[in-house]
């Protein structure tokens, strides 16, 4: 009986051909390099950022010549001297740091029960509701949300309207530091939940059941089992919220009424309001430095959390 020309399906032969072509283009001896090849686009992207940072660093070493509105030829540290000797920048930097720490702490406290309920609830309906409520804000940009708060918290807004029903005169709920922090917490909370949920999912429910069956109360189980095992998620969520809050622009600009600037607002002012790119660049580098120090401090104290992808120090 003659051997059929079609012993293998056509699709298999196509796959063989593709594999053959691939082995010519990328021989098997190169296989160890495949992960690096896949890493290449990300590395190139980061390299672009690094090149940008180098240019910003170079720009920060030039002052603005106000007779020509061009950068000076000479290299100087004058921009940095001015920043460190000006109270305004210390105030703004401190406000940004303190605000980001407060927002991070509040977000972690609020995100934990939300995430826990979302991953542990036996009700599919409740889980879906929590997921929808989590993702819905992502469809609304930060600026739109901030303007939404202007409508809700304004002197003639919903909140003051409700206060008016019980005879309370309108009070200023906007354009102050708490309003900025409130807006940031509302904006950052979904990020924290998203970072925490996978870490909580990874905690086996059986461990909580075992603790319960050994007589531990819900509180003791939470303190001694859930919280320590959730630490990587807390650290990861904290890092993301901390860095995003530290560099935020829109919430301080819109909800702060012009008097609660964060460092990003000061950078904007230098680049766009006073045309002083050197000063703006110097402030940018300082922000990057402060943010990196804060992240480094968290890494040192708590490890990298979920960002270490399971290779955190034990």
């Amino acid at each position, binding site marked *: 009986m003659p051997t059929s020309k079609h012993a293998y399906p056509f699709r298999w032969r196509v796959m063989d051909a593709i594999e053959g072509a691939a082995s010519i283009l990328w021989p098997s001896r190169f296989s160890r390099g495949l992960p690096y090849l896949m890493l290449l686009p990300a590395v190139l992207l980061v390299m672009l950022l690094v090149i940008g940072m180098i240019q910003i660093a170079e720009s920060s070493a030039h002052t603005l010549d106000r007779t020509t509105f061009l950068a000076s030829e000479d290299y100087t540290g004058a921009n940095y001297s001015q920043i460190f000797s000006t109270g305004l920048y210390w105030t703004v930097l401190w406000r940004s740091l303190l605000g980001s720490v407060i927002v991070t702490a509040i977000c972690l406290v609020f995100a934990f029960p939300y995430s826990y309920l979302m991953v542990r609830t036996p009700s599919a309906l409740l889980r879906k509701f929590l997921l929808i409520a989590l993702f819905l804000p992502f469809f609304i940009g930060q600026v739109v949300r901030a303007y939404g708060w202007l409508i809700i918290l304004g002197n003639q807004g919903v909140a003051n309207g409700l206060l008016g029903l019980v005879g309370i005169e309108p009070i200023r709920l906007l354009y102050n530091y708490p309003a900025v922090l409130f807006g940031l917490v509302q904006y950052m909370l979904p990020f924290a939940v998203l970072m925490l949920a996978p870490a909580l999912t990874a905690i086996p429910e059986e461990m909580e059941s075992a603790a319960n069956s050994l007589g531990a109360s819900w509180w003791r189980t939470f303190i001694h089992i859930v919280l320590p095992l959730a630490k990587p998620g807390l650290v990861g969520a904290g890092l993301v919220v901390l860095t995003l809050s530290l560099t935020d622009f829109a919430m301080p600009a819109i909800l702060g009424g*012009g008097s609660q*600037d964060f460092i990003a607002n*000061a950078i904007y002012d230098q680049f*766009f309001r006073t045309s002083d790119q050197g000063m703006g660049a110097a402030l940018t580098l300082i922000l990057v430095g402060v943010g990196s120090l804060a992240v480094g401090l968290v890494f040192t104290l708590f490890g990298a959390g979920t960002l270490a992808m399971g290779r955190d120090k034990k």
Partner: protein
Amino acid sequence: MTKTTSILALTRRRFLGGAAALGGLAATGWTGRAFAQEPEKPAEIIVRAWGGSWVAALQAGVSDPFTAATGIAVRHDLTEDNEIQPKVWAAVAQGRVPPIHINWDTTTNATKSALRGVTEDLSDLPNLANTTELAKPVGLDGYPIVNTYGYVYVLAYRPSAFPDGAPASLQVLLDPKFKGRIALYNDGIGFHFPAQVAGGGKLEDIPANMEPAWEFIRKVKAQEPLLGEDPDFTTWFQNGEIDLAVTISTNAREAMKNGIDLAWTVPEEGSKFETDGLWIPKGLPANELYWAKQYINFALTVEAQQVWLDGLGLPGVVPGVTPPEGLAGDPSYPTEPEDFKRLIRIPTAIQVEHESDWFSQFKAIMQG
């Protein structure tokens, strides 16, 4: 069946339309020169503008008639003036075509661009011959910018909060009953100079000694003012957030048009008078530069100024423009030398050199 019409077919409607456009060109100062060696028309020109009532006025007064007369569409880019500036500067420095054809800008900002050398000279615009001296930028060679109107940073107020009449002095900003209900620009623009007088200082001391201004602003800071940009003032008045603001009269007028009871005054300390202008960045193709110049030339006609500045409620630079209803003799609409006596004008050169210091000082006080 599809009806087709030759573009060469001369219908009665086309003839009348063409005749009207030609008549409009002639009436607005467009000479036969426009037809002698007319460069190729671009599909559109891009004009950076402020939004809201500002761009609506420009469109009605200048852009739409320009399009009707030339067939060139005008696109308004509403990027903030401060944000477009570095983009234009970078484009010129890198030899790229700039992102806009015309920048509608404050004279102070535009002067920075002129000093940097990124502006085209507009001295050859025929309609400059019909303008007042306000159109000429001070301290610059030629016309790297053409000023197109002036404006006043008035003290706008809610009449219901002032039953005894308009506030006479800026000292009203320190009245405890207005705590949290006053607004200024977030960089203090328009307020530095009147504050210098309100703080007991002299205008002649600017910029050498502005401590009186900063001292007064420190007192105002204790009143927890709101700080914002042009659209914020209109919104804040409309939402009942503020009773007093130092702002351009156009913003208060816009809120009034929306049904808010507002008025404005020039306080005894005086109000800052400033100008805005139009300029063209370097690096445009020759034909686009030509038509951008024609746009600015058209903006300097009486007809264009009449409609544009009716919308803004501001005095122009071409004689013969009739003030909008209710603004003749208004302190925000100065036209005669007598009108300028209560207004504060600081030379552009001083403002350009020191403005960032003043902004920083104001911020330092307000952010503290």
